[in-house]
């Protein structure tokens, strides 16, 4: 409220802070906010209040935005349904019997329901785009390094990227422009000038070459999802785009490679949660026992599974067979994309193989859950940008998302195509649980 009052006062005084001045923003609860609890939806960080703001939070505040709250996630961003939260699951506003996707399910649901106008999520293997798809909103993962990760509690550092979750493509541009750009506190942040991403939103797709990824539009994709994607491709062709099919053979190995690289990095990133300095501590006879008990009690089962998997993958004698091989696959996938972009300007696919699935449906089957990210993971492995735009609903009335991918730092092109998809889809359905006043905005 204080933020809102400050924004009001700034408006009254005629101060211009930026396009997000006075705009209510929700942050996924893995981004540090000074003086506000930041838990990663984990018991191990219960009550933890960071002494500093993540760079994105600081930039939002500086831009006059009002941080209205922190949103639920799968613990430490590990999951695709926002069911793995120590604070309970988030439900999909379109149908509370289904999941909102994940791990940024809280941000997706908040924007879909209108409790925040825009939100930031983080995307390690699809955690912005997949929940955006399941909740019928726009979700965008920028090029790796475009948005500072300083203050984002790391899951897998080489894959994590913060991005906007909004109702419209134009809002995504405004939010991204507020938070993007070089940060001296993040050694991996992009040093170049950040161009205006929204210059070409009205430019259309005439003459653009759009490649449809064969491996992501065949088996394993729900037929209604495929149907909606195919119909959008027809519309894009009619709008003047040159549509062709592109094969990225190595992407078939994207999922297994991701589930070695991400756990390996997380096994180190999450090592610091040991009860010594902050968060939960469960006492023990020795320091080692205290650490082991704290971690056993503080982490949920999915986190434990990935930490163990990653520890194993990095162990002497297994490194080459698992982690080392996954890195080689990552290189092959990068090369596939580089080759593809010699012939096409953007690549497209469904965002998620299915629409929102029932709460509990995949909870007991990790592999089925992991498959939810099959279409989004390749962009994290390459570091390239990707966006999900809602294009329709299935027979059950659940939203379907269309994914556009572009080469690194080609955000302007990505948004140009996304804006055309948004126009062509004319997606106007709203979830049953949306609050009325924001729907009108």
């Amino acid at each position, binding site marked *: 409220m204080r933020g809102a009052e400050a924004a009001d006062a700034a408006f009254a005084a005629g101060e211009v802070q930026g396009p997000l001045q006075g705009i209510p923003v929700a942050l996924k609860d893995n981004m540090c906010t000074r003086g506000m609890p930041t838990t990663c939806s984990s018991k191990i960080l219960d009550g933890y209040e960071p002494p500093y703001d993540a760079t994105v939070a600081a930039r939002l505040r500086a831009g006059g935005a009002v941080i209205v709250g922190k949103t639920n996630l799968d613990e430490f961003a590990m999951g695709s349904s926002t069911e793995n939260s120590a604070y309970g699951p988030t439900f999909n506003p379109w149908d509370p019997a289904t999941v909102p996707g994940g791990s940024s399910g809280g941000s997706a649901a908040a924007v879909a329901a209108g409790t925040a106008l825009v939100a930031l999520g983080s995307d390690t293997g699809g955690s912005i785009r997949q929940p955006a798809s399941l909740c019928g909103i726009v979700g965008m993962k920028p090029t790796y390094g475009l948005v500072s*990760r300083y203050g984002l509690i790391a899951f897998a550092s080489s894959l994590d990227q913060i991005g906007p979750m909004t109702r419209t493509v134009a809002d995504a541009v405004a939010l991204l422009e507020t938070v993007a750009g070089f940060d001296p506190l993040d050694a991996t942040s992009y040093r170049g000038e950040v161009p205006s991403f929204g210059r070409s939103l009205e430019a259309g797709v005439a003459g653009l070459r759009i490649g449809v990824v064969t491996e992501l539009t065949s088996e394993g994709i729900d037929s209604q999802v495929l149907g909606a994607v195919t119909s959008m491709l027809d519309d894009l062709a009619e709008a003047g785009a040159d549509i062709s099919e592109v094969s990225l053979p190595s992407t078939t190995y994207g999922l297994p490679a991701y589930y070695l690289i991400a756990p390996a990095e997380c*096994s180190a990133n999450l*090592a610091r949660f040991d009860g010594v300095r902050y968060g939960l501590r469960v006492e023990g006879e020795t320091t080692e026992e205290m650490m082991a008990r704290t971690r056993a009690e503080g982490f949920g089962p999915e986190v434990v599974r990935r930490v163990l998997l990653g520890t194993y993958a990095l162990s002497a004698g297994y490194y080459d067979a698992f982690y080392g091989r996954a890195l080689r696959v990552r290189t092959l996938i990068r090369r596939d994309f580089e080759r593809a972009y010699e012939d096409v300007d953007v690549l497209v696919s469904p965002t998620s193989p299915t629409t929102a699935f029932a709460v509990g449906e995949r909870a007991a089957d990790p592999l089925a859950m992991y498959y939810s990210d099959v279409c989004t993971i390749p962009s994290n492995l390459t570091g390239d940008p990707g966006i999900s735009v809602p294009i329709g609903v299935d027979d059950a009335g659940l939203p379907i998302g269309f994914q556009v991918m572009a080469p690194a730092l080609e955000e302007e092109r990505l948004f140009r195509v996304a804006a055309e998809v948004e126009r062509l889809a004319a997606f106007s359905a709203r979830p049953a649980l949306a609050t009325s006043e924001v729907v009108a905005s």
Partner: protein
Amino acid sequence: MSGWEAVVGIETHVELQTASKMFCGCPVVFGAEPNTTTCPVCLGLPGAMPVPNEEAIEGILRIGTALDCEIAEHSVFHRKNYFYPDLPKNYQISQYDVPICHDGSVEIDVDGDASVIGITRVHMEEDTGKSIHVGEGGRIHGAEHSLVDFNRSGVPLVEIVSEPDLRSPEQAREYGAELQRIVRALGVSDVRLEEGSMRFDANISVRRAGDVEYGTRTEVKNVNSLRSLQRAIAHEIERQIGVLESGEPVVQETRHWSEDLGATTLMRSKEESEDYRYFLEPDLVPMRVDASWQARVREALPELPAARRARYKGLGVDRRTAAVLAAAPDIADLFDAAVSAGADVRLSGIWVTGELVAYLRAGDRALDETAVEPDHLAELSAMVTGGRLSATAAKEVLGGVLDGDGSPGEVAAARDLLQITDAGAIESAVAAVIGEHADAFAKLREGDEKVLGFLVGQVMRATGGKADPRQVSELLRSKAGG
């Protein structure tokens, strides 16, 4: 140890004295209140990220270049994973398969026996915090509780790994000492062993003389003085020979040196040793040190101890003095400046490595806290060679100069230490002594040289020690001969 040969390699850790820490902006200071020089990065708070310190990279490049290493144009950081309460992220950012410097060497000399010790690699990492265990003699086992001070966490740490080229405890000690001298000359660390800004791990094995295969090695961790390094290695060699001669195998393990016990004790066996699960640090990008940066570092290197020793040898400085000078760059610089201002090499060598060093040590002072200037030494030297000041009085004058009492001339005059150079005054003193001790003078006339010392002594006493004894004895001789 006859019939046996020891094989020793040493890992040396050097904390760099940079303005800020390796990956954050916190200052590098020793002895601050616990946990006052920390921030989210060096405390390993969730979300914090490392940013490399260019000054530290420059520091390690200076060390690597001084050790004649190859410099990698591209090198990378890795994470070294292990759980320990003073390691806030529970991984250390270090280097693994692509260190920034590799394949160098250093020449050491033990009692005139020179050898070249290979340097495998020199890599960059961050230091850990410090655990303070309360109760049970300060060891972690049995302590009532432990405290952690993170001031040291993230201080730039350089690890210098030698080849297993050392063959004796004496060589190992000299190797450690030479590294200390080199790093001090470079000015990148104060290399104070007692404060932990330089520390050693030694890998030790023994084999039958003439064997080519290495024996099983043990590692002695965290040795924090040169004396301990020599003793720990000597003890470990003896222990391993004892084990082998009793028909048992040496067990690969990590051992701890106890200065009090004068012995190494088991820390952990190989089975308990950690698998560090190294992998590329994803929060950092590869480091690039291009040819022009390498050249700049090379050109900016100061004169290194070995070159200094060789130069002093050429100047006629004795071996001991040259060694002391080469180990203390600031004093050696004063010496060099004094000599170029005209000071006598031998006299200034004695003064700076004798009186000056003793003066600094007694007052726990640094050279720049004294008032001495190179010109002072030149002036003092001229006074002694010109016979106006005795060698003994010169030392007293130097003390006054160091205290800031003025130039050597002023101090000598104020303390009435100048010698009598006036020939008439000496002549009359000699005449008086001859009159007083006619018997002795008669003996001298008869050629009895034994009484000369006595007569000179009497003249010196009469002049209050201010006559030049050489001049006095010449005068006495000429009178006796005439």
